[in-house]
């Protein structure tokens, strides 16, 4: 029987009531009395020298309060980067300044160089058009290969070149890996692109800055996944406001997907201008601005090689990746292609030797940072593509090849630093094979062929590192923050609880699932537990939500705090029942003494804590409120197996996903319905990346996919009903109290290779035996091109690693890319 409450129950999402009835309170719903509006003037060239900005006409326009330019921010801090990567020579990465408003140069289309504050938004917009900027266009570097060429135009004149870092991991393994390749019986190699994406949360970014002169304090309302992190980054590094004078509020947030982790210039601007002008200042991004100012995701170009011995055991893996950083370093940008990517290159396999090289490159494009999965989708895609190609080259079953090489004994120390605590990769593969009726595929393929379609089946495994992260470890790796989480549990006199969590929900349903955990621990109804998040004035501390960490880290902090509550409540109960504390049990909201008929209700104990007339005041304090900080001692390692079945129209190249199945191991599951929803969402984004989404620039750095007319978002229409199962093969995490691993990113990590594997399988079955790879997104044009041996119509191109004349691999551009 499914449970109807507590851990394991599919409780309905309580927050959906307000979201679905239009009562959500988003940042744009916040209007502070007397607020002014800001409109940013953004560069329409990818790279240019600012010769001068004439604001006089704009300043004279109706309603205009003040026009700001980069000059107003001299002496103000730079937008900081939160992670410093050390390169393979032991040197720190090159780290450019990132002014709030551009100073000297504009470096990407959308880079703000002026800001007009006016009484109304319309007035600010009118006046912004009257700001006259004299900008001399400079040659732009868009293509990563061009950016690294000798004598290339520099994005930042004060840096040595456009190379942020050249990272080797594990550098000491490099020679041993080379030797293994020399000795390999078979080597499979593949060059591929992980296409640049725009996150496109439904709610665009918004910031409202407010300043209170009576106590010299600032408040920022913002669309953020981590308000405390913004408070620290903006307060300490940009504006010099101490935490006790700065409040950051992130109320209901309409989707983040990573792009709302980062500290953005617009947030600093509104907070700064509110103080300067002593009036609230509000900015609401337009959808067009979102395309050119929200941090983008992915954009890797990789060459991967897999070495196998004569028995098809993986003996070594070697990769070379170019990772686009864009024009500035966004908050966590340097960590994505390194520590969130290189550490996952062992995948689900016991490959003994791995060497990962990553060159991070500055270009005149929007900064690139974490997007759902962040580094792990890039790792999974290349690994699961090369394994699939190896199986095809060797003429062996792709599932059997994977099973043969799976890690089966845990804990398992990988050659890329991380140690998997637990897992069962054969287990999820077994579940998957049952879900998809693999034996029936041949008949389904025949049926498709009878209708003139090619049918393909793509299967792959994935693993991710979630529950980010042990602070001492990430500190060694260059993180400039701790990655613990905190929770405060406040029990009220009449027994209800408020949990103040540093995790932030922007669609994940924490208000429901977190309440289930606490209610289950005490044995009271879920509606007795209120979850508070998203406000630095209400929640003591928090590191926020990303990297599928909320339940594993934030939930663990909440469990620890609740355990402290229960321990203290037992002391009170023992006093009330005149029993020994060690004999007191808590069950179903009632304390009892083992072996007696004595009991006392939860509410009587909580009342005693606040009305301590009959209370052990000499031993414990009144009140019932506890805080815990939880710092994980390892990552968690969700893993699973995915399968995609496609039909390809050989006349048009159009791919239809006809079935998709996901077998996941997230460890224990608190709310199966929410988990299912998270997997569905992740799959939509992963399949969207594989088939539809493409953020493209032309050679001059103009953003080609700058609206929904050209950036293809997936719709329900594009998908079959997904089959998902995260219940049948579970290995609970061994090192956190709930045994949970995290589920938010899995779908986006595991699904892109399934789709591409399936399309290649379909094409191979149709006789296109020289098509081993097509770069994402697999648009009809590209698939048709691959079938017709052409690689036509390349637009702006980013090079493959080791690019040469025959390599068409690139991360952006139009036309067809196929590796033959």
């Amino acid at each position, binding site marked *: 029987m499914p449970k109807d409450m507590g851990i394991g129950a599919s409780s309905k999402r309580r927050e959906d009531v307000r979201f679905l009835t239009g009562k959500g309170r988003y940042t744009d719903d916040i209007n502070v009395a007397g607020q002014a509006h800001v409109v940013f003037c953004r560069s329409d060239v990818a790279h240019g020298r600012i010769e001068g900005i004439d604001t006089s006409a704009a300043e004279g326009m109706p309603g205009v309060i003040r026009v700001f330019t980069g000059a107003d921010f001299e002496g103000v801090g730079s937008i900081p980067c939160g992670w410093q990567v050390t390169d393979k020579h032991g040197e720190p990465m090159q780290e450019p300044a990132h002014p709030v408003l551009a100073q000297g140069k504009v470096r990407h289309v959308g880079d703000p160089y002026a800001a007009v504050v006016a009484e109304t938004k319309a007035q600010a*917009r009118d006046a912004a*058009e009257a700001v006259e900027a004299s900008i001399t266009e400079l040659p732009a570097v868009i293509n990563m290969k061009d950016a690294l060429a000798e004598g290339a135009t520099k994005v930042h004149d004060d840096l040595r070149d456009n190379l942020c870092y050249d990272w080797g991991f594990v550098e000491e393994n490099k020679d041993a890996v080379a030797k293994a390749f020399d000795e390999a019986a078979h080597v499979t190699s593949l060059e591929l692109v992980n296409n640049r994406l725009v996150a496109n949360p439904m709610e665009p970014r918004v910031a409202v800055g407010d300043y209170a002169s009576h106590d010299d304090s600032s408040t920022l309302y913002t669309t953020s996944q981590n308000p405390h992190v913004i408070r620290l980054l903006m307060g300490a590094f940009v504006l010099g406001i101490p935490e006790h004078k700065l409040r950051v509020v992130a109320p209901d947030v309409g989707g983040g997907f990573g792009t709302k982790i980062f500290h953005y210039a617009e947030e600093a601007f509104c907070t700064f201008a509110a103080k300067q002008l002593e009036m609230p200042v509000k900015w609401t991004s337009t959808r*067009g601005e979102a395309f050119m100012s929200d941090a983008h995701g992915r954009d890797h170009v990789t060459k991967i090689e897999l070495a196998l011995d004569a028995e098809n055991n993986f003996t070594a893996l070697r990769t070379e990746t170019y990772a686009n950083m864009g024009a500035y370093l966004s908050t966590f940008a340097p960590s994505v292609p390194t520590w969130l990517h290189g550490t996952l290159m062992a995948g689900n396999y016991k490959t003994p030797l791995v060497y990962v090289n990553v060159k991070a490159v500055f270009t005149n494009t929007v900064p690139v940072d974490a997007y759902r999965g962040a580094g792990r989708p890039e790792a999974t895609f290349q690994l699961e593509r090369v394994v699939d190609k190896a199986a095809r080259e060797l003429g062996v079953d792709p599932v059997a090849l994977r099973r043969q090489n799976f890690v089966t004994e845990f804990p398992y120390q990988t050659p890329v630093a991380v140690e998997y605590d637990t897992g069962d990769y054969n287990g999820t593969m077994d579940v998957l094979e049952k879900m998809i009726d693999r034996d029936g595929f041949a008949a389904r393929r025949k049926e498709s062929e009878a209708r003139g379609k090619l049918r393909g089946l793509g299967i792959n495994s994935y693993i991710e590192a979630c529950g980010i992260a042990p602070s001492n470890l990430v500190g060694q790796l260059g993180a400039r923050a701790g990655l613990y989480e905190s929770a405060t549990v406040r029990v009220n006199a009449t027994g209800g609880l408020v949990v103040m969590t540093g995790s932030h929900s922007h669609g994940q349903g924490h208000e429901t699932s977190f309440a289930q955990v606490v209610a289950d621990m005490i044995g009271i109804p879920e509606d007795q537990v209120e979850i508070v998040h998203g406000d630095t004035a209400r929640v003591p501390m928090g590191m926020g939500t990303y990297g599928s960490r909320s339940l594993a880290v934030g939930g663990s902090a909440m469990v620890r705090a609740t355990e402290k509550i229960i321990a203290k409540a037992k002391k009170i109960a023992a006093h009330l029942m005149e029993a020994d504390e060690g004999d007191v049990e808590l069950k179903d909201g009632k304390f009892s003494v083992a072996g007696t008929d004595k009991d006392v209700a939860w509410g009587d104990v909580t009342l005693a804590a606040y009305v301590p007339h009959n209370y052990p005041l000499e031993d414990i304090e009144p009140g019932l409120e506890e805080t815990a900080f939880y710092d994980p001692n390892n990552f968690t390692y969700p893993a699973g197996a995915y399968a995609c079945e496609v039909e390809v129209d050989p*006349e*048009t*190249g*159009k791919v239809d996903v006809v079935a998709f199945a996901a077998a996941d191991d997230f460890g224990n599951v608190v709310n199966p319905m929410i988990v299912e929803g998270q997997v569905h969402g992740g799959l939509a984004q992963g399949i969207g990346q594989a*088939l*539809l989404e*493409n953020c*493209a620039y032309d050679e001059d750095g103009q953003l*080609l*996919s700058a609206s*929904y*007319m*050209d*950036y*293809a*978002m997936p719709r329900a229409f594009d998908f079959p009903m997904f089959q998902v199962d995260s219940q049948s093969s579970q290995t609970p995490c061994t090192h956190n109290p709930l045994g949970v691993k995290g589920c938010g990113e899995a779908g986006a990590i595991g699904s892109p290779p399934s789709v591409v594997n399936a399309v290649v399988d379909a094409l191979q079955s149709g006789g296109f035996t020289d098509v081993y790879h097509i770069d994402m997104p697999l*648009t*009809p*044009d590209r698939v*048709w*091109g691959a079938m017709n041996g*052409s690689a*036509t*119509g390349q*637009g702006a191109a980013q090079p493959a690693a080791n690019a040469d004349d025959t390599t068409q691999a690139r991360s952006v*551009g*139009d*036309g*067809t890319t196929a590796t033959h």
Partner: protein
Amino acid sequence: MYDFQLVKPSSVAEAIEALGAEDAQALGGGQTLLPTMKARLAQTDTLVSLAHVEEMKGVCTDDAGRLCVGGGTTHAAAAEALKSDYPALSSLAARIGDPAVRARGTMGGSVANDDPSACWPAGVLGSGATVVAAGKSGTREIGADDFFQGMFTTALEEGEIITEIRFPVPEKAAYEKMIQPASRFPLVAAYVAKFADGVRVAITGASSDGVFRWTEAETALSQDFSAEAVKGLAAPDAGGMISDLHGSAEYRAHLCKVMTARAVKAAG
């Protein structure tokens, strides 16, 4: 959006009068013009909404048996009204955009705008329809072959509006489209119509000159109305085809063939 005056005439005569004003612009269903104005990429002093001109709405049949669709008829209304008398054209209208677009967008607005990827121009040119335009100097009829003059360019004079389009009903017809996945406009679509005196094939989405007749296919299909007849043809010259993020010129040229053959097959 910049400030503008909104005028709401209730007759064609009033609309023509209003469009005589300096920098006046006709507004159909607003599915292209309004987003463009919101993005400040278009501006006008006077916006003349045709939404209240009842005489420009609906479908009727004239003495020659042609179906006359009012310029102000929405895609959804046209789809419904044409269902039994001209199912191919009804199907074209029923598959434009999404329900919201079809409820607001009008046939006349789409044809007058002449987006190179719009659906209606293919139906109008493929049917060999006659466009009725009203302006200051009266009402005139323009044959479809003369009406479309290139991307976003038509034979309409300044201040003229499409009051009606008269569609001769073919023996057989069908419209097949491959959508551009972002905008869901046609990437390439073919409208094939078989009349007693020959076959017309109109292609939209493909050419940088906008909708065009694929005459080689028309000749071949007039002799042998079969998908095989199309498969034997060379694809149209890719030279003038649109090449962008969503499809190369060669791919679009190829799709002209595929969509035409499928339309022939669908027409039966």
